[in-house]
């Protein structure tokens, strides 16, 4: 029998805020990729931007949103799939940012990068869902799954375009808000596509060893704290760099 799912709206808003924060930090780092002059600098910039986007804007957002979701069951998460979902998010975002973070903009690159990141968001989400261990089975509405992926791809493309082509304050703020929408739009559409059906109380193997909400809460807290520190350091470094440029 399908189960009713309700949301804690405060945590839903928090998930969007974390997604915007991660996107903001990531895109601040990503727009500096074209300025890298050595492969090492470029790799470092891509990895940091990919980490902030994959782990902060997407992975942390997903698990805050999952904490916001109350299906009336105790849920734990398989550690291996949960870790894999983080790796996939990081890799997809790094690849997408590397593609678009070239000095010369082109629509083809934007399409490839947006697809990479959008599918990365989707892959992370559905791997995270597959990691759920609970006395229920999940089924999906295929149309809504496709819609969730389309939202992720289109909004990612829009965010990347804004980040790399606008200038001034809107460059970062608007792109972060749109990227936050891409991640949250994908997630909550994906959640709408999911139906949880009670399996009669049968718990899957390894349920007791799974990650619990408090484990995830601490991890998410660590990631968000790191993002905030990274953003402050970046802001301080940019201010110093800006004042060091002589005419």
């Amino acid at each position, binding site marked *: 029998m399908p189960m009713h799912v309700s949301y804690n709206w405060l945590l839903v808003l928090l998930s969007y805020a974390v997604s915007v924060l991660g996107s903001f930090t990531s895109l601040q780092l990503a727009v500096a990729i*074209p300025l890298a002059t050595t492969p090492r600098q470029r790799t470092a910039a891509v990895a940091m931007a990919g980490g902030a986007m994959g782990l902060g804007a997407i992975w942390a957002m997903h698990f805050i949103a999952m904490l916001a979701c109350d299906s009336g069951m105790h849920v734990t998460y398989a550690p291996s799939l949960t870790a894999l979902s983080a790796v996939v998010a990081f890799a997809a975002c790094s690849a997408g940012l590397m593609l678009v973070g070239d000095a010369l903009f082109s629509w083809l690159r934007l399409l490839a990068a947006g697809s990479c990141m959008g599918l990365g968001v989707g892959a992370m989400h559905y791997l995270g869902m597959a990691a759920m261990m609970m006395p229920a089975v999940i089924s999906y509405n295929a149309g809504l799954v496709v819609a969730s992926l389309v939202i992720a791809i289109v909004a990612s493309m829009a965010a990347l375009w804004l980040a790399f082509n*606008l200038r001034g304050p809107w460059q970062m703020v608007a792109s972060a808000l749109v990227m936050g929408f891409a991640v949250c739009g994908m997630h909550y559409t994906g959640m709408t596509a999911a139906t949880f059906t009670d399996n009669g109380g049968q718990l899957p193997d390894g349920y007791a060893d799974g990650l619990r909400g408090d484990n995830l809460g601490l991890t998410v807290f660590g990631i968000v704290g790191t993002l905030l520190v990274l953003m402050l350091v970046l802001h301080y470094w940019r201010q110093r760099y800006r004042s060091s440029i002589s005419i």
Partner: protein
Amino acid sequence: MVELEVQVLSDRREGLLAELGRAVVANGFSLIRQRLTQDSHGAWLTMIVRGPSEQRFALEETLGTHNRVLSFEASLSGEDAVATAVFAKSTPVAVHAPSPEPPPIIEPSATPSAAVMPDIERVEHILPKLAQDYPSIYPWLVSLENSVDDAVRESSLMLAGRRTGAWVYKRDYALGAKLGLSDAIKRIGVPALRQLADIEQQGVHVHILNSPLCTPGVQSGCKFYGGYLEGLLGASVTPKKVFVRHLSCRSTGAPHCSLEISH
């Protein structure tokens, strides 16, 4: 021939000598010797270069607007230094008052290139003040306008504009992808120029409505805006070079100053 000692500060040393060495060679100079050191401010590259004196301005402009360069100083060495220093030195002139008389006819210079060479010393002297007071820079520009010879006024204003534009680009607009010309005009040129003057933009045309540098019936300071846009947009639409053509000026009775940007 002229021998220059150039000192450059960059935020990192990797690839610095190779990149700036290419710029030196591209301007017809050869690198005699160099020294690369690092301190808490960044990487310092000192180069002794030799090349044709008429290319000195081009080399200094290339280095001054190079994206790896945070700051640079160039000084002459050897006997050519005296000649160039004498050439660069200009005589201060009084502030022009509005006059019904036609503008004075400038005598052709003995050296053909001298008419287009800016007064580098005076421009270099005023640049830190432009950076310090930016965007309230008109008093300094008017001072520059009035302190250089008529023959080098436009080229000096253009050089000041280029250096200021390149500096503003590096400071405020360098993050992001390279843009096409029309996007660069809309997203970089227009907002940056609006900090300095009331403007209108239509495609590749920019109209400066009330330029304090261009007083009706006196002299034109439009070259500053042209140089400013070239410096500002040049780095954004590379590898193409940006050119600004001056279509009309308030100083000649036009309702506003008009510039056309192309590459």
